């Protein structure tokens, strides 16, 4: 080995990229996308908790693009939005959960979305530079390990 570098992710993306990362990540926690955000009224949430994704900057959407994704799992709803400052925000709503439970679940969702975003960005950028992924595996703790050659 010659260098070891540790990097904290910064999420800078447009809404479609974030939507793709959310779509790929939330299913692993048993959440499913709802068809429309309009079903909010049917969801009688008793507890609500808001979380911001640190180090995130979501580029403004194109005209007509909705900056909102709603996912649900038995009694819990997570709403991903771009806030006024451009950061990615998640509003957790639930019935029967404490605020700390919702916060923990929300943070887990954010972690998975961030990991998915980073994975997609790393793979896309390396391939664009004609680098070859020779091995890829997912460890028990969900760490994704990639080996790359050919630059």
């Amino acid at each position: 080995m010659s260098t070891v570098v540790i990097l904290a992710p910064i999420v800078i993306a447009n809404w479609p990229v974030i939507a793709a990362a959310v779509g790929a990540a939330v299913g692993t926690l048993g959440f499913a996308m709802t068809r429309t955000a309009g079903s909010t009224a049917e969801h009688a949430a008793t507890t609500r908790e808001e979380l911001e994704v640190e180090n995130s900057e979501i580029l403004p959407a194109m005209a007509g693009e909705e900056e909102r994704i709603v996912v649900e799992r038995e009694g819990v709803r997570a709403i991903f939005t771009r806030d006024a400052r451009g950061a990615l925000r998640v509003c957790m709503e639930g019935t029967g959960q404490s605020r700390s439970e919702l916060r923990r679940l929300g943070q887990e969702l954010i972690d998975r979305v961030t990991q998915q975003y980073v994975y997609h960005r790393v793979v896309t950028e390396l391939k664009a530079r004609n680098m070859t992924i020779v091995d890829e595996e997912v460890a028990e703790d969900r760490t994704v390990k990639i080996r790359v050659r050919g630059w």
Partner: protein
Amino acid sequence: MAKEELEIEIGPSGKVTARTIGVKGPRCLELADLLARIVGREESRTLTNEYYETEQHVQDATQVRQRRN
């Protein structure tokens, strides 16, 4: 000659640890810089023995050449 590899680990919260393997000299720094541009903020960077050994070999060879001249 050992194969040059880049080993990347993307942790459960998106934090990345990358290691260059068999990459000689400062070229490994270029790879680290590339990953930093792709992922985000660099938290730490460690140069391991191989980096310094390689640099030392280059330096030694230069000194030998200078002494011969």
